């Protein structure tokens, strides 16, 4: 009889097998195998009850059932798009899900090719020739963009200029990433949701090492002067990093075309559900930064039969070889999410992806118009093109947010008078009900 009902359910040893193995090793008990000084031996219990699979599923289901069942109109950097069923099924195949980093490429061609395809999709969408095969999320990707800047900059600048309206959390992460460098973070002003170019132009000087801008912005507006931003950065001998996301990339101006030296952002908008903020950091850059890229890169090569084959490459950039001189400390990354994201892009195809991006603009416009028609609501607040989301002005935003929650809807209240509302295909059918609820709530 196996002992999987008494010890670890996943250790297959029967008592007799254990005994035989102990004998082969030459000890009498499992305890003898531990070379731990008496004074640090743990004699206690964690007080964690061993549970059956059925119990754990019931328990977690019940626990998560405590989450209210709300229809979310939430965004601000993290988005929900429909993930086709086949993506779940095939990404869950154990050959993908349970594999390790591809240190033995001969038996990891499948994942390597999928990551290579992911990189290629980002190359197409950004117009930049180098994309790595994942960072943790948009915030850490931005942090890595800053540390790359500190490594490649020959000029003297020490300032990373970011938008005033940057999500506070993203900025927080950036601050931690630059803490070990000579860089510091400052903001430039915004005007009606977008970069205030006049103010920015005044601010730009040789102290700026990196100019960061986003499109869509955290308030969902489309940045209209991307080329101008790139020009301002390059004129000041600074690098230009654009923050965006994988869906927007199919529609907005191509980053390479507007002078972006790096592109960061969220790629997991396709491939992950909301997942309480789990992400996939997008990172792409110009050719000349190749040896300074953080994270893993998959490259094509050939095998002994001269067939095309893939492998992790340029690993001398990485921590396991270069240690403290590595381009980043990242090791475990978000590979499996990158696989899913590539699958989602492939599932949409070029027409589907472009259509989805267009729907992000028209859906936001439609919903803003409908909300605007409600007495006591002004939307959108910014006179801009919006992508997925926009601000709505109401008398008492926190109060309206709470009322909407009571009615089954989640929106952002970003200050006393402004809600932020985000819509995609996953909540499109509920727009009408949101408007009805809003009528009651304001």
């Amino acid at each position, binding site marked *: 009889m196996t002992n999987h009902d008494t010890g670890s359910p996943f*250790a297959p040893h029967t008592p007799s097998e254990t005994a035989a193995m102990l004998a082969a090793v030459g000890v009498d008990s499992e305890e003898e195998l531990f070379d731990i000084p008496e004074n640090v031996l743990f004699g206690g219990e964690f007080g964690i009850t061993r549970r059956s699979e059925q119990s754990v599923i019931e328990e977690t289901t019940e*626990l998560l059932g*405590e989450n209210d069942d709300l229809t979310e109109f939430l965004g601000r950097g993290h988005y929900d798009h429909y993930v086709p069923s086949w993506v779940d099924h095939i990404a869950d195949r154990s050959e*993908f899900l349970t594999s390790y980093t591809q240190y*033995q490429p001969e038996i990891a061609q499948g994942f390597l090719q999928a990551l290579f395809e992911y990189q290629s999709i980002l190359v197409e969408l950004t117009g930049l020739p180098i994309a790595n095969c*994942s960072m943790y999320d948009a915030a850490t990707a931005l942090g890595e963009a800053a540390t790359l800047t500190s490594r490649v900059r020959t000029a003297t600048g020490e300032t990373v200029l970011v938008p005033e309206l940057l999500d506070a*959390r993203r900025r927080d992460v950036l601050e931690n990433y630059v803490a070990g460098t000579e860089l510091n973070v400052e903001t430039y002003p915004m005007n009606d949701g977008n970069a205030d170019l006049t103010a920015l132009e005044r601010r730009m000087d040789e102290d700026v090492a990196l100019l960061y801008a986003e499109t869509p912005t955290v308030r969902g507006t489309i940045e209209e002067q991307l080329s101008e931003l790139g020009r301002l950065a390059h004129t000041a001998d600074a690098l230009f990093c654009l923050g965006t996301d994988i869906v927007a990339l199919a529609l907005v101006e191509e980053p390479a075309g507007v002078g972006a030296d790096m592109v960061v952002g969220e790629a997991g908008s396709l491939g992950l559900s909301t997942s309480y903020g789990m992400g996939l950091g997008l990172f792409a850059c110009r050719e000349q930064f190749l040896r300074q890229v953080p994270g893993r890169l998959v490259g094509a090569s050939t095998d002994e039969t001269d067939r095309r084959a893939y492998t992790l490459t340029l690993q001398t950039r990485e921590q396991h070889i270069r240690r403290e001189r590595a381009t980043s400390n990242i090791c475990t990354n978000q590979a499996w999410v990158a696989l899913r994201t590539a699958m989602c892009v492939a599932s949409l195809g070029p027409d589907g992806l472009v259509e989805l991006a267009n729907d992000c603009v028209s859906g936001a416009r439609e919903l803003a118009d409908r909300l605007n028609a409600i007495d006591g609501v002004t939307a959108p607040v910014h006179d801009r093109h919006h992508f997925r989301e926009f601000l709505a002005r109401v008398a008492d935003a926190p109060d309206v947010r709470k009322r909407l929650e009571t009615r089954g809807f989640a929106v952002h209240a970003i200050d006393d008078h402004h809600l932020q509302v985000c819509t995609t295909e996953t909540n499109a059918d509920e727009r009408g009900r949101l408007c009805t609820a809003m009528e009651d709530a304001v």
Partner: protein
Amino acid sequence: QARWTEDEDRYEPLLAEKRSTTVDVGGTESALPEDLTRDSVTLPDLSEPELTRHYTRLSAMNYGIENGPFPLGSCTMKYNPSFTEDVAALPSASVHPDRSQASVQGTLELLYRLQEYLGRIGGMDAVTVQPPAGAAGEFTGILVAKAYHDANGNDRTEVIIPDSAHGTNFASAALAGYDVVSLPGGEDGRVDLDALSAAVSEDTAALMLTNPNTLGLFERDITEIADIVHDAGGLLYYDGANLNALLGRARPGDMGFDVMHYNVHKTFATPHGGGGPGAGPVGVTEELAEFLPEPRVRQTDEHGNDFELFTPERSIGRVHGYQGNWLVLLKAYAYIARLGDAGLRDASAKAVLNANYLASQIEYEVPFGPFHHEFVASATNDAADVAKRMLDHGVHPPTTKWPEAVEQALMTEPTEIENRRTLDQLAEAFNAVTAEDENTIETAPQRTAARRIDQAAAARTPRLSWQALAEHDKQ
């Protein structure tokens, strides 16, 4: 199965090679004015049956834990039970990170419970689950240590790291702005107390230690080590990569460690996903708790809203845009709950037994000992070649050529999930290679999906996208 090789040039065409279409962007159907859009997008354009076959074939060219043993040292490749996937797939598990706290009490309670479990398992007083990977945990822990020293008015500049430590330790310390002091290993493969005493100073912010270390050896002098570091005013950091060896046997907190990270994708069986996502929660002592990243979760008395997020008083801020890799954390919780005390304690027992048993069955020198959940064997041939040849025996080889304390190292960690028969077969694969001629070994693998790959050429002429590849093939 016969592999579907569409042609002689490649094993499976790229998506873009199967069918690719260029779509105009902008124009009359566009939701944005033309000057705000790109011109066109060129992407693969395939139907669902075509895509599922593509990826099913790719999966068949990939080795996972359900294909066979995966004894990568320090990687702890355990079986990943699928019920944790079911839990992560619950619709109620997917909420937006900006939900009001009142509306996500289930998520918050689960995070709280995980913080508690991890604290108990590591003997730590406070835990953050935010870091999205082990290296992110290291970075977080070192930032916490730095904040602690800063708060105490100490401007310490150095982090000491043993030679045999994981590369991430060095890189994380450097990322946090520290100078790295590399500590050569002692003759017994463990920390040399004299060398450590010589290395510490008032500049020492922390010593980062893996225990058991990468040779699988428990740092027997851990109490002395802790004293030396603490006496110098430094902190002791525990790299959780090898925690599976100690579950229920010893706790970093009890050994004097001040900060640690957990690799839930190792110790707690969340799947590696071909490189990630993982999660690297960080535990600290009471003294350091106020520096942890925001937000953490705590229990409250408020009725109907029993759990809340809070910002530790002198928090370092954030290391992830939201709450880290939540779905991974959820799987780790489910795994820990499934095993409980008895299962966790049995896991370390069987992990150590398996390593010792496997070592006893192979005809390789295994210097140093007694080792725990992993051992480092020394190959007589080039270790990388040996690994390639092991592929032909249908198994995943060990980690190779590291740590450097062992020549031609084969760093081997079978974990508790292998049965005796599989370990015997692994041993046969090890031993078979020793009997083979050099040519066989150097031209291995022969039986894998792809044959040996020219890594030098990949780095010499980087082709990192299908666009670059097409360009390269044109030339």
